[in-house]
């Protein structure tokens, strides 16, 4: 799932655009060149790694004992946290970013291990990462702050006993609406089927992700959103065809902006974007649908070939500390999984919709499951919607 954005505390809009620009000019261009140079010199296989391959090459000269390479979603951990970590422990963090699980998988496979220590991955790719031998046990008994996390996100079926994963935050894909605009259009939404209402023509902003959008179609049709059967998945295309004219834009990176600037009346967006949009435009609300929302748990995983297991454990303990976790949440308000952080937050923060595990939408949500090889059918159906 795609993470973005900063919480709207006044100038969030600018800050976020800043991050966006930084990502555009900084990482994409420069890293591609670095990647090319590396690829040519060291291995052919990383040519396709593009941005990712070289991300970690920045501080090659630094003492390997004091550096931790993190492969993370763009804008998910604030840079101040890394600075503070270095101040306290002397370990310098080098972060490379990606914007989808698929991108991360592709780059880790292309890079063949060793270039990153920690990655942040969603629950439904953990199995694939295990099968592809991309991750190793994290040494969970050293992660003492694991107890700060809510038990409800621990010991999940994709990783019993949390051998490989330590949850960080969680995102939920929700339906948001601009009540003014929806009122003017004469639409009210309480199920996914309402999204295909012709009155919403050209009025929806949606995340650009095949699992999310096809998943919504399948839930609306009463099908299993994690089906691995090609025909079942393909049958969702009829529903998607009805949705298609209503989509104004797909945007996983800055979906909140389309809601804030009222380009779209309705959004199929991540809760992170919802919080940001709500902070900047008070007409925006979340809608509770009768179908469950899609949730994913993003966890730290230890990459295969990492030589900094101790530093990685130290970092995970650091970020799970209630005060540090609070810093992360205030910058990137996804779903709070840290029960020790909750008392530190203001009542206003805690009462945001889709922010804690006790929220009714979150309670009713469903984890996105791994579909293995069937991922290509999801992509196929979604691509066809765009053809």
């Amino acid at each position, binding site marked *: 799932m795609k993470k973005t954005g900063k919480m709207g505390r006044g100038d969030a809009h600018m800050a976020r655009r800043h991050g*966006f620009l930084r990502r555009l*000019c900084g990482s994409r261009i420069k890293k591609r060149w670095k990647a090319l140079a590396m690829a040519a010199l060291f291995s052919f296989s990383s*040519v396709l790694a593009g941005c990712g391959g070289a991300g970690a090459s920045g501080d090659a000269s630094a003492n390997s004992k004091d550096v931790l390479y993190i492969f993370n979603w763009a804008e998910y951990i604030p840079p101040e946290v890394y600075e503070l970590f270095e101040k306290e422990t002397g370990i310098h963090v080098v972060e490379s970013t990606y914007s989808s699980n698929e991108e991360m*998988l592709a780059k880790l496979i292309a890079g063949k291990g060793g270039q990153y220590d920690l990655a942040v991955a969603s629950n439904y790719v953990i199995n694939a990462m295990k099968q592809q031998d991309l991750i190793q046990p994290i040494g969970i008994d050293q992660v003492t702050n694991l107890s700060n996390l809510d038990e409800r996100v621990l010991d999940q079926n994709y990783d019993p006993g949390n051998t490989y994963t330590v949850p960080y935050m969680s995102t939920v894909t929700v339906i948001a609406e601009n009540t003014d605009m929806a009122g003017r259009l004469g639409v009210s939404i309480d199920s996914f089927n309402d999204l295909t209402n012709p009155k919403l023509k050209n009025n929806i902003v949606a995340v650009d992700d095949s699992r999310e959008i096809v998943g919504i179609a399948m839930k609306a049709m009463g099908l299993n959103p994690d089906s691995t059967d090609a025909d079942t998945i393909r049958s969702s295309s009829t529903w998607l065809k009805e949705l298609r004219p209503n989509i104004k834009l797909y945007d996983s990176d800055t979906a909140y902006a389309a809601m804030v*600037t009222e380009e779209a009346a309705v959004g199929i967006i991540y809760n992170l974007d919802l919080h940001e949009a709500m902070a900047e435009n008070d007409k925006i609300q979340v809608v509770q649908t009768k179908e469950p929302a899609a949730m994913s748990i993003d966890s730290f995983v230890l990459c295969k070939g990492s030589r900094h297991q101790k530093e990685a454990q130290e970092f995970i303990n650091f970020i799970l500390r209630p005060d540090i976790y609070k810093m992360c949440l205030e910058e990137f308000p996804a779903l709070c999984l840290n029960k020790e952080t909750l008392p530190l937050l203001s009542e206003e923060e805690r009462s945001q919709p889709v922010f804690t595990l006790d929220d009714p939408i979150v309670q009713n949500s469903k984890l996105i499951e791994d579909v293995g090889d069937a991922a290509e059918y999801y992509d196929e159906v979604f691509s066809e919607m765009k053809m």
Partner: protein
Amino acid sequence: MKKKNKEALPRGFMIGPAMAWLALFLLLPLGYIVVISFLQKNAYGGVILHFSLASYRSLLHAAYLKVFAESFLLAFETTVLCLLVGYPMAYIIAKSPEHLRAVMVLFMMLPFWINSMIRIYGWSTLLRNQGVINWILIHLGVISQPLGMLYTDGTVLLGMVYDLLPFAVLPMYTSIEKLDPFLLEAASDLGAGKMHTFLKVTLPLTSPGLFAATIQTFIPALGLFYISDMMGGAKKMYIGNLIKNQFLSARNWPLGAALSILLIAVTLFLVGLYSRVGKMEDIV
């Protein structure tokens, strides 16, 4: 025959670095792409070392052909608009006093110091419903409702033309500048009107520039994908998106590689076609 220059550096020394650069950064990656296009895909991304033609067979799917058709149409429209807008621009620059020409070319190139994605993002802040243009029009009372300009096919075309225009203007400018003014005087002496002179003298003599401009806009236009993503709302799939998706979300590298090779083949074909009508030197 020229006398051999004994003081010249050894040939390998002279062209070696360039060849090494080409081999490392062009041939190797290209070879890698060719190889993986003939391999089997791995369900989790990457490839299995097993010969397969599956990716080339799937190129013939109707859906992919449609994506190719859409991409060609967009590239064609972009090129035509770039020529229509660019030719008069090039003409005006070439006919300006010499000291102004450099300034005008500089002004045209100046935006290129800024990353093109940022410039495209700038367009969306201008065009969006609460953007500058709609705000002005509404406050002037010209319109009562925002025009809804962003995320349409029209804005994609606008972004494409904006991004590629300088590539069209520069070769045409060079061509028009080289045009011998005496020929125009001769045409006028012989009684040709302005229109007649333009059609019979100026246009044919500057056609190499026109061809070069066509190639230089059409080929990049085929591969650009972020403009349709950012200004079109990522609603339509073009060749560029299709290739990117195969690597980053569909986990089908061989198909992505095969699509890239098809794109390269089409490009080479166009350049080949061009080399029959125009001079290769005009492109550079």
